[in-house]
């Protein structure tokens, strides 16, 4: 299994943004990795129906994602992974999934968080997950669509004195 993009986006698969990424990265499969969505039939149905034409979408749990990543039977698949939260990305990387950068689209705001850029909000859990990923030498690339200028989230965190 070839991971062409690992993306953090609270809205997971949504609209044209996902289609744009799928096109650019030339994947043939989108995997939404989320323990919560896997349990939620409404969101699951919505996600699967919102999938771009010609690309299959599956929703799997984190545990299953790690399992099938290492399973040679699934070798031919080119994948874009969507997760909701930095912690999920961290767990995947911990589980052995190899990427050299993590794309960050949007992380929605709530009262525990602070905004670091126009679309990214973080809380302490997120910061520590990002820290862990950064220490692995993996780039934290903030871009909504592929044509955006890449911004390094680590820089932003440093600027805001959050790390």
């Amino acid at each position, binding site marked *: 299994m070839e991971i062409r993009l690992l993306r953090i986006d609270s*809205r997971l698969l949504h*609209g*044209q943004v996902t289609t744009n990424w799928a096109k650019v990265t030339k994947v043939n499969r989108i995997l939404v990795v989320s323990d919560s969505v896997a349990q939620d039939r409404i969101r699951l*149905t*919505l996600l699967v*129906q919102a999938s771009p034409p010609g690309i299959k979408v*599956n929703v799997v749990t984190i545990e299953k994602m790690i399992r099938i990543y290492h*399973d040679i039977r699934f070798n031919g698949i080119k994948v874009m992974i969507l997760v909701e939260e930095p912690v999920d990305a961290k767990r995947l990387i911990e589980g052995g999934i190899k990427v050299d950068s993590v794309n960050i689209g949007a992380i929605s*705001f709530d009262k525990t968080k602070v905004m670091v850029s126009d679309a990214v909000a973080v809380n302490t859990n997120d910061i520590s997950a990002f820290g862990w990923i950064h220490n692995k030498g993996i780039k934290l690339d903030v871009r909504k669509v592929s044509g*955006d200028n890449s911004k390094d989230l680590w820089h932003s965190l440093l600027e805001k004195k959050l790390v």
Partner: protein
Amino acid sequence: MTRREKILDYLASHGTGVGNAVTTSQVAERLSIFRSNVSKELNLLVRKGIVNKQAGRPVRYWMNTNEKNKDSDLEVKHPKETFSHPVERDFSTTTPKIVAFDEMIGNHDSLRNQVEQAKAALLYPPRGLNTLIIGPTGSGKTYFANTMYRFAIKSEVLLKKKFITFNCADYAHNPQLLMSHLFGYVKGAFTGANEDKDGLIQQADGGMLFLDEVHRLPPEGQEMIFYFMDHGIYSRLGETAKVHQADVRLVCATTENPESSLLQTFVRRIPIIIQLPTFEQRTAREKIKLLEQLLTLEANRIQRDICLNEDVVQALIGSVTYGNVGQLKSNVQLVCAQGFLNNMQNENEIRLKFDQLPPNVKDGLSHLANDRHELSEITRLLETKMIIKPSAQKEYIESDSYELPYNLYEIIGDKAALLKDEGLDKGAINNFIMTDINLHLKSFYSKRKLNAAEDRLNEIVDQEVIKLTKKIQKFLVEEEAYPARDNFIYAMSLHISSFVKRVQSGKPLRQISSDLISMVHDYPAELEVAQKVKVIIEESYQFPIPESEVYYMAILLVSLKSEPKAGMVGIVVAAHGKSTASSMVQVVTQLLSVENITSYDMPLEMSPKIAFDGIAEEVRKINQGNGVLLLVDMGSLSTFSSKLTEKTQVEVRTIDMVTTAMILEAARKTALIDSDLTTVYRELREFAGYSRAAERVEIKKQPSSEKNSKKEKVIVAVCSTGVGTARKIKELLDEILIDNLIDDIKVLPVSVVQMKQEMKKIKKNQRIVATTGIINPDISAPFIPLKQLLQDGGKSLIELIENMDQSQGQKIEFEYSDSITEEMAQKYLEQYFTFLNPKKITNVLWKYCDFVDRRVQMKLTNTFRISLIMHLAGAIERVLMGSKMTVSTQEISNIQKTPIYKVIIKANEMLQEILDIKLGENETYYVVQLFNTELKK
């Protein structure tokens, strides 16, 4: 020379005056025209004043000198004795008094409000209000609209006496043609438009336009009609500006449920909604009146009295299942045609006898008898004999779809004469003509889709079972004189189907309780018949039927015969979605004609408290003292049982599965006499569907003990040898599994030869989740035939596996349940957006969707709407934040050519008006692309 002219000629040759009068028989013999036709023509001529007649038997006719040249003029000469063929509705000249709502049956009763509404709509200053008439098939929408028109004429609120009717379904497949009919076109608007042409709207200027089946109007037509309603101006096809003006009263009609999404816009935009009652909802008195009126129409046509006994009246009233007054009209026509044929020799009257009625009308009597209250109410109002005389009043016959397009009596008469000439005897003639009448009826039936119920049954039960059941029915009717009618087919085929299913799935057979045995012994006749039925089933399936089934069958026969009303277990179906529960219940009620069932629809946004109270209300209503079975679609509701019992004092049991098959089974089980809640509940829990197709949906999670779930999951593929083909199937299955990222299920090929032993071995250490292959190994796990596997590329297999893993197996069907509302979108916005106020923005974005929906070719699905709303909210937030999306100029110029671009720009302008937020070119690009992506699907 027409028949009429021949007769006139003959009369003229005899000269005028009573002295030269001739009898019908004389004319008939002389001109070799069938006697009843002569009689009819003569009566017609009398009414026109061309011919005079002398009372007394036999009646004599002679030519009226003064009126000789007055021919095709249908003006009524003697209003007391009028003629009632379909007439041109030109009310301006002929009728002295216009009959409007005063003559409408039920205008003081079940149509009282409707009539008031209609009057108000027409009289409302300055130009009245547009009206939408809603009612089921045959409830009289066209008749009502016609009456509204007459009332408008009478009240002098119309400028011109014009009533234009247009059925939107006629051109529904060709929106352009429809629009050109309605609005007209200008020269060059399309190929073949060689000159300007006015549409119906212009023709109706100053009068009334009746749009039937208005829900079939295409979106662009709706938009134009609404615009026209609001502003009174419109454009013809090919014109850009709306320059034409017309003053038109619009009356629309539809059979759609007002709740349906199709009608939403209409219901919102049309101020007066008139809901017509079903025939069922009419009072007993009205039902009889309606029947009398319809019979009078026929009596007028044949110019004879129609005599019918009480039981025929009851059968006719009961024969209306769901076609309402329209169906009654058809049945009356059929029965009268038949009566006419049987009484051809009788000049004065025709008699309708119960045992001569066609079976579907005969069934009406037992239908009616099911409702004791209704039956007694109707019987109270009836004399033992009803005599309908040709009416003295002018009747308006509406040219509606229930009217036969020709004069049936004339055809019968002509045909009988023809056959008689051929030398056929009376019996043979009657046979021939009855076949004809039945053919006419059949074409009506298939047109009206009265067979829909049986088609649905075909979906649920295997064709073979239906065939077998029909065979049994024939046997019962012909050899046992057992009254097995239409509901027998449904009840019996479902019973056989579920029994066969049970045997095939290897489940233990039902235990016979001693109660059951002692009860059946009270019905020795049925027990004996059941034994015979058992033999028929055994012959068909080639396996022995256990004795216990005979008892059940006997009970079924007893139940079908007596159909007791009191003490049945009630059923309440509650499901999420605006009409999920009610539509399923409707199907079941239609199939089994049961009344112990009701539904409760729960839109997603409904609070549990309201749902609970609503369900409690339904439980109370349906309870007949024997407890209520509650079928629900989601687990959370299954906890309601005890609370419901507490609140309603009615014993309630809940089954957390709602499928049409399940409801059918529940309705069927509760319809058996002496069935009690506990038994029904227990049996339903084991119910596994009627056919394989249904099985898929209904697989319940196996009670997975700790040990069971730890076992490795396998799919067993049965092949002839276990090698060769087996390997192929295994490869195929593996591929399907991998494609769906299923890594924890193994495929095991098994040879059909050692199947039984192999299965046992496998079961010990592994858990069989499904079987497939060339034959069904008949184990408890579901079986998917190889053919199906190949046809759907494993879709059914995957669904099965996914449903097994989900504790709640119901797939959410947004598009069918229509339960996605603005609130749902709002919920999602709340979750994901930081700066927007979802409460305020959702409605605006919903409007945006509506706006676009009306202007693009594609239909916006609910899922897509949510997707679009989410995206738009994101776009608005980005604008607010000053954060830009990246797009190249090339990409932007590419999409500017697409047709959707213009619509989106318009929609964005609307958004800007409301929110004062402008979506830039870049954002527009992504919105347009979102549509283009959706279009590709």
